[in-house]
């Protein structure tokens, strides 16, 4: 199977310059790979660095050392060393990040938020709209909300808009941080289905799930971050 992510000797230490230069080591010598069609679930207690690792894979946090090779358009590219426009291109076409929080933009409707990534990939506005509407419906977001800006939505509604945006056209690699945190059982099941579908269609998945039931439904493999923490 195609390796989509290859993590090589990644270490992360935060240095807080304005708090006496205190150094917070998170982990050291992280090595693993994820193939297409796999779902790797990160395990370890709260504070072990699971979210930090996920953000490093996305190119959001910068590791203190090490390499992360992302298979992008058939080539392995080290996202740590890549220039900003390459990182953005990797994110646009290959690497998706699903967080539990929606970054609300004033005046932008839920439908536009969901349509945006498929438009950026070059789909026609009509097709993109149809796909976005289908995804919002699948996540049970009431139709009367579709053309409103989500600033006033509940936490769970905002979260579903965010998930719809991420799964409207799943990326070859999906990084998922607690997608079901404030969802009811019905919508939680939809999210589990969406993740399973993306994986069966060949996506490589790395995720953090606190809900034990969700975790066991999604995972094909586990990685305990605590093992890397001891070394740091």
């Amino acid at each position, binding site marked *: 199977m195609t390796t989509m992510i290859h993590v090589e000797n990644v270490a992360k230490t935060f240095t807080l*310059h*304005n708090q006496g230069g205190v150094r917070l080591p998170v982990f050291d010598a992280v090595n693993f790979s994820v193939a297409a069609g796999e779902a790797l679930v990160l395990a370890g207690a709260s504070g072990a660095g699971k979210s930090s690792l996920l953000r490093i894979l*996305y*190119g959001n946090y*910068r590791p203190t050392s090490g390499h992360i090779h992302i298979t992008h358009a058939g080539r392995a590219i080290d996202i740590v060393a890549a220039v*900003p*426009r390459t990182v*953005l291109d990797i994110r646009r076409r290959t690497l998706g990040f699903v967080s539990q929080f929606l970054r609300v*933009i004033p005046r*932008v409707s839920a439908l536009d938020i969901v349509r945006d990534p498929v438009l950026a990939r070059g789909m026609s506005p009509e097709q993109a709209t149809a796909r976005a509407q289908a995804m919002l419906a699948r996540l049970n977001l009431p139709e009367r909300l579709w053309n409103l800006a989500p600033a006033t939505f509940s936490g769970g509604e905002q979260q579903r808009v965010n998930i719809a945006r991420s799964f409207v056209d799943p990326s070859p690699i999906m990084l998922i941080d607690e997608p079901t945190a404030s969802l009811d059982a019905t919508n939680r099941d939809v999210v589990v289905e969406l993740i399973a579908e993306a994986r069966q269609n060949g996506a490589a998945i790395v995720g953090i799930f606190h809900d034990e039931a969700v975790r066991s439904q999604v995972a094909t493999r586990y990685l305990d971050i605590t093992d890397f923490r001891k070394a740091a």
Partner: protein
Amino acid sequence: MTVHVSPPDAALDPAPLLSIARVSRFYGERIGCADVSFELWPGEVLGIVGESGSGKSTLLRCLAGIDRPDAGEVLFRGSGQPLDIYSVAEQERRRLMRTAWGIVHQNPRDGLRMDVSAGGNVGERLMDRGDRHYGQIRERALDWLARVEIAGERMDDRPRQFSGGMQQRLQIARVLVSEPKLVFMDEPTGGLDVSVQARLLDLLRVLVRDLGLAAIIVTHDLAVARLLTDRLMVMKDGHVVEQGLTDQVLDDPHHAYTQLLTSAVLSV
């Protein structure tokens, strides 16, 4: 995680639009900006952040052709060979400033002609680049007023009859109507009410994406930088202390000064 504003093929462009090498400007003994180098690619949006006096506006003025730097090079690649914008005659540089790139000033009064109608402010730029057909100029001006959400019936009003937010939108129409590849913006939302800012920000976000514009935006507002920019440069005392992808710099700042800036705001 954030909404990206670059066009799909940004990474395929063969050459940078702007290449800056070791640009410095001094005010007597005092440093305006020192030894700044970077490249800007087509469709990229770069933010320059820092407190007042950090040199970000000085740098912008050097890059935009307004103030000649004391040292360094500003190379602009329009359609042909790269051109050192300070090696050409003043008149040629003025022409480039009106046609090849655009400047959105913080104060709309600095970018608009206050005694000329809204339609005239927009149409004038088309005449600058050689358009002569009055009907077409008027039609394009109307189209651009609509894109920045100014009603067509205000076309013959003068900017001084407009609110601050409308003046700023008019300035943006005047800059973008000539289809520049590159736009410089100095605190484009500064001095506006928060609700007016939100509307302007959304407008800028959509225009930059739809037109595939490259832009350099100076702001002290990290939320504005987060919304509009792909890359960020952090300036302090005239020097660039940190740069990178916008979300990297804001979420995992490495330099002490950037950590101070990002921790000083409530939430970006």
